[in-house]
């Protein structure tokens, strides 16, 4: 399917290189390497707050067919979790590591890469396995986005 702003499409804003690799690894595993063109990963800004800001703005300007997912690090900051995950904007979703991706990577059975962490998260997501997902904040948002994508026959 071609990328078309009048059809369902998803833009994923990632905070940094580590999150980009995790997201790409997740998508590659989830879609068995054939990631649909209606999903685009963007890394335009640095830092969790500017990523959130850019993602929210893109969502506000995108019309009803656009979904925006921001992937940020929460760094164990309870305040950030409250601020970022507060409901208030339609079609906007936030997820991210409760601590840092580096720490989560160490939980893999053998020393892994960020991309393999993404692969493992996708496998666990499909298998409803919960060894890695408790370390991810706001999985509910991802569930909701996935359901939306399923309704559109994207996955």
């Amino acid at each position, binding site marked *: *399917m*071609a*990328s*078309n702003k009048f059809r369902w499409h998803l833009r994923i804003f990632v905070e940094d290189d580590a999150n980009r690799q995790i997201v790409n690894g997740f998508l590659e595993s989830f879609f068995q*390497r054939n990631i649909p063109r209606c999903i*685009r*990963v963007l890394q335009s800004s640095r830092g969790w707050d500017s990523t959130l800001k850019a993602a929210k703005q893109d969502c506000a300007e995108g019309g009803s067919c656009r979904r925006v997912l921001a992937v940020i690090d929460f760094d164990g900051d309870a305040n950030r979790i409250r601020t970022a995950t507060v409901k208030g904007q339609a079609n906007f979703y936030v997820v991210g590591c409760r601590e840092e991706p580096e720490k989560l990577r160490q939980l893999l059975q053998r020393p892994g890469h*960020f*991309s393999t962490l993404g692969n493992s998260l996708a496998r666990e997501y499909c298998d409803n396995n919960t060894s890695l997902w408790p370390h991810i904040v706001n999985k509910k948002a991802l569930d909701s986005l996935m359901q939306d994508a399923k309704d559109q026959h994207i996955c």
Partner: protein
Amino acid sequence: MLKRLYIHNYKCLVNFEWRLDGLQSSLLIGKNGSGKSSIADMLTFLRDIGRGENDVSALGREDGFTLSPLSLWNGRRDSCEPMVFELDAELDAVLYSYRLVLDFPKKFQKLRIVEERLSQNGKPSFTREPAKVTIAREGQPDAVLGHDWHSVFLPTFQDASQNAPVLLFKKWLADMVILTPIPFLMTGQPVDRLAPLKRSASNLVDWVVRLQADSEAANQIGDYIREVFPDFKAFAIRKLDRDASYGPEYLFLRFFDEQTSEVPFFLLSDGEKCFFLSALLRASATLEKVSFCFWDEPDCHLATHEVGFFIRALRALSGQSILTSHQLETVRQFPDEATFVLLRDTHLVPTRPPRTLEQLRDAKELKGDLSHALLTGDLYGE
């Protein structure tokens, strides 16, 4: 699957070893002159050997260049150091290791082969010193024969075993797709329907002719093209004048449903031609007609917003792929462990062995954001 390359004394690559460790898709980055395309050259020479070319000075000729003595590191005739090419590939659980060593003694007009060797799982199939070839034979004494020292032996070598494993290796070499496309040269006219795809992809239509005979391939090509051009309907090779009984044939692409909406391939833009080429490659790989592809700068003709999708599609090829690039968006499609950086300080020193972005990060030689390091040249030590 390609496992390892070793190049010594070829252009800027000296004692250069690259282990791919089973990576299905990898990216080479480095500043201009760091040796990315030289790796494509080396693969082109070996591909030509696989296709049966044994004249050492004819290797690469079909693609407009040759394995010249000038390619020796610094072009020094007085150097005693030979040029070495080694390639390890695992095919059907057999590790094939091929080694070719060339030198350029005084009073010689072209390169001489001083050593050549092929082994399977470490067991030699044949070894060769300048003009003497020794063929290992199971349960029998080795066969020894003479051979011209400007002539590569591998194309001549035939394996008597039932499964013909050496033939498998030669076929794998011959089928390697190595691309440095020059869209301007893609005229859209079939030239030699049996000719393999050139590095410039100038004879891409010959490939189309072969693929379209397979209806599944034709359907897949169409599906891939429609990802980028939703109005694309079909392609056909026909004469300019539909009713003509003779005259040259051309590749046409039909958009929308009307026959009048056909566009000659040569009217497409450079980027559009590259999309078409990638559709051919993806269809061929899906149908297992291509198992290895090296594409030098696949993104250089594309609109920025298309680069990510294009590279993602090449990464998803069924076979093994190696890409090179200077573009940030391309680099962002690859994980750090599959992105190899070539570093070369000046024209007087050779390229350093490739290191992954992950290794550079671990060694604290890459700190912070990759885009910043690429855009400032910090990644290359600028």
